[in-house]
């Protein structure tokens, strides 16, 4: 066997801060052979990024113990000039958020030229330009010569990520580290990026260290998988082995937390419709004189939501799904259309909605860090809907708060805490409890799980489903994650560019999508079960 590109032996990394030390990584051992792709899976705080960054020698305010050898060089004891030579040349990095990694005040091309120049000072202006345009072509950027002179904000997120990949491969490194390169992207864009990564690996033969919390992405790019938790590597193995026969309990839990079957959406046609929308149109811009371009965010969309049912609205960013949610909750007004709650139609002007109308439709936001007032205690937050809608007598409020906390499986003494003293998943439970505190008929959930870690996501989804059964509320569930839709069941509408492309029961749409775009979405987010099955078959074929 050839020498590994990366050889990490018994590495521990400790962060020092004023408040003490944190062991981010504990005795990690990992080898990557030339040309091999290794994926690291773990939740936030598992130490996966810290470990990856330590390979480039970039661990400020941290003590690194153990041995890290990159292409034969000792990283732990390397001098800063040595590290600079290695970075970009031997190891390069694709960060998670391309918007932050690119300089907004510089044209795109010169930023990649910078990297080339750092390793080859002789390079002439014209030659560098040609090389960068070549690179842009290899990462399938449209009209590369044109793009060279554009600014970051003028290209899409997927294109920004391609630019960073181009920069990463520019000096033909032996190892590329990708830190959640698809996390900020839409499903269809991320599938293209994954395809590109696979192609580039074949043509360049470089090794890849791929960090992600998304199992289906890791399964598709890597040969081997490393599972990290609390700073420790709990499992390593080939992708097929790990996914088909996970040995560690945590890995099993991770894989089990991805729903494989469509949840049973029983025929509930007998349930009355609680919320219906017809021909909702929302346009932005236009101006008084009509000179500016108008943007139609929502274009004649309608739906019917039955009591105790879930309707998922699926779409990528910019599809108008959030705008639709805000119209339903009365945060913005629609230009046309009709919304009715039960038998009553709601006034077009959301400011004229009565308190009872508002009580009936509650909202859960995507990011629990922003949706809870940091200066209010949990008790104050939960009591507000009760005070506002008088849904609870004032002497019974404390009891109701305790009851709600119990319903979302949090200890009763959390009532006295501030949001900053809770974890992300706990905050989202509070946001859910606040929605239920109003005793609503419909809850609009705007991507309530997408800011959470995978295992927390599953718990929050389970909670939502249990509360739905108990309280018989309806969910209008906004999401881009088809796995979530699968777990929720019920009905589904697919939105793109403001219009509704497809609607129907989740199981029907998943089995036989009618529209090309739906098919594309479904293939972009494959069922992990399918992948595992394929892998298990491949493994068996190898054995025989």
């Amino acid at each position: 066997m050839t020498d590994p590109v990366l050889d990490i032996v018994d590495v521990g990394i400790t962060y020092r801060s004023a408040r003490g030390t944190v062991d981010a990584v504990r005795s990690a051992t990992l080898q990557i052979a030339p040309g091999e792709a290794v994926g690291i899976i773990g939740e936030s705080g598992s130490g996966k990024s810290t470990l990856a960054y330590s390979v480039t020698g970039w661990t400020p305010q941290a003590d690194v113990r153990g041995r890290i050898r990159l292409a034969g060089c000792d990283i732990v004891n390397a001098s800063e000039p040595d590290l600079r030579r290695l970075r970009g040349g031997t190891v390069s990095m694709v960060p998670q958020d391309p918007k932050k990694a690119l300089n907004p005040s510089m044209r795109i091309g010169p930023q990649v030229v910078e990297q080339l120049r750092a390793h080859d000072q002789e390079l002439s202006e014209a030659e560098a330009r040609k090389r960068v345009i070549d690179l842009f072509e290899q990462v399938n950027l449209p009209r590369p010569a044109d793009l060279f002179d554009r600014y970051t904000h003028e290209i899409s997120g997927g294109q920004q990520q391609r630019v960073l990949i181009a920069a990463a491969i520019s000096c033909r490194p032996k190892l590329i580290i990708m830190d959640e390169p698809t996390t900020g992207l839409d499903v269809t864009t991320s599938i293209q990026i994954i395809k590109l990564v696979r192609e580039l690996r074949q043509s360049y033969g470089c090794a890849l260290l791929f960090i992600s919390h998304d199992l289906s992405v890791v399964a598709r790019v890597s040969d081997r998988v490393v599972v990290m938790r609390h700073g420790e590597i709990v499992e390593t193995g080939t992708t097929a082995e790990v996914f088909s026969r996970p040995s560690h309990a945590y890995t099993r839990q991770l894989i089990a937390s991805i729903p494989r079957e469509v949840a049973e959406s029983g025929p509930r046609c007998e349930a009355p419709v609680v919320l219906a929308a017809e021909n909702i149109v929302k346009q932005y811009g236009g101006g008084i004189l009509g000179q500016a371009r108008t943007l139609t965010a929502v274009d004649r969309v309608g739906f019917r939501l039955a009591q105790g049912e879930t309707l998922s609205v699926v779409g990528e960013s910019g599809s108008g799904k959030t705008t639709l949610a805000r119209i339903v909750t009365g945060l913005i007004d629609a230009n046309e259309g009709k919304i009715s709650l039960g038998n009553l139609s709601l006034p077009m002007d959301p400011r004229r909605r009565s308190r009872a109308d508002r009580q009936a439709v509650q909202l859960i936001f995507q990011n629990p860090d922003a949706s809870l007032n940091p200066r209010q205690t949990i008790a104050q937050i939960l009591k507000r809907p009760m005070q506002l809608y008088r849904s609870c007598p004032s002497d019974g409020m404390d009891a109701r708060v305790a009851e709600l906390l119990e319903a979302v499986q949090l200890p009763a003494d959390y009532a006295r805490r501030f949001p900053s003293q809770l974890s992300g998943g706990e905050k989202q439970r509070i946001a859910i409890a606040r929605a239920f505190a109003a005793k609503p008929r419909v809850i609009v959930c705007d991507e309530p799980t997408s800011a959470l870690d995978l295992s927390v996501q599953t718990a929050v989804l389970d909670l939502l489903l249990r509360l739905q059964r108990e309280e018989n509320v309806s969910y209008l569930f906004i999401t881009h994650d088809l796995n979530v839709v699968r777990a929720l069941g019920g009905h589904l509408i697919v939105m793109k560019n403001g219009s509704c492309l497809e609607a129907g029961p989740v199981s029907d749409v998943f089995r036989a999508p009618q529209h090309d775009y739906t098919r594309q979405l479904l293939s972009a987010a494959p069922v992990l079960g399918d992948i595992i099955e394929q892998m298990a078959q491949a493994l068996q074929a190898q054995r025989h």
Partner: protein
Amino acid sequence: MMSRILSDSKKNRANLGLYRPSFALIVAAIVFMFWVLAAITARAFVPHDPFNVRLDAMLLPPSAEYLFGTDDMGRDVFSRVLVGSRDILTVSFFAAIIGTASGTLLGLMMGYLRGVFDEVLSRIGEAVISLPGVIMALLLIAALGRSNVALIGVIAFEFMWVVARTIRAAVLLQAEKDFILAARARGDSAAYVMLRELLPNVFSVVVVEFTVRMTFAVFSVANLSFLGFGVQPPSPDWGLLVAQAYGLLVAGYWWVSLFPTLAIASLVISIYVIANEINRWLSGGELPA
């Protein structure tokens, strides 16, 4: 309220345990407390009656008997400076607190309600701020008459627009956050959202604004008194003392104007140092000098 603001911010939680006040802050706090005590109690303790005219003791240089010397009417400068702290501190305090409170309310409304209300008031505010403060104060006092109440009102009015601008900017940062959307979606009134949801989140800015306004208020009162539009005689106000005595400088009687000038400087600087330190606690930034 204060302790909650301090303990809520993560940055400060780490700092407070290890907090050591700087030397400058200790000195500033002592100086400031000295003037506050003087304002409250000096009348009872001063060695000489600050209003007692003694034609036999005119323009005596500093000595053991008269620490800061005497003025051209034989009054003890030391006693006058101590007693003179009362008006400037009272007027500055009320001007700063009224200006900050009204500016905070205005800023909350402008930042949350937006629209025409915000546009119109922003333009008015810009107009007020763009005029030299002293000129406008002179005009307003000329119209309202010279009194401490008018002085407080005029300074507070000018401060209100400055504070409103700062608070409006802080509110804009918060107003698009989801917890505000949540309050709007559930149908809470604008007053509830502004006072219960937004105000606690911008309160650290309000505290900093108040301390900064205090500095400027002392300055403004001293300035206007010097020009004859501020605190009125017979009060031994510092600005007045300087105004009455600076002509004597040419003749070599430096002590009559020097000590009230030093008093103004010490008060302004001590408040500024304290304000700066509070700002560092709350936002981690230095004030512009």
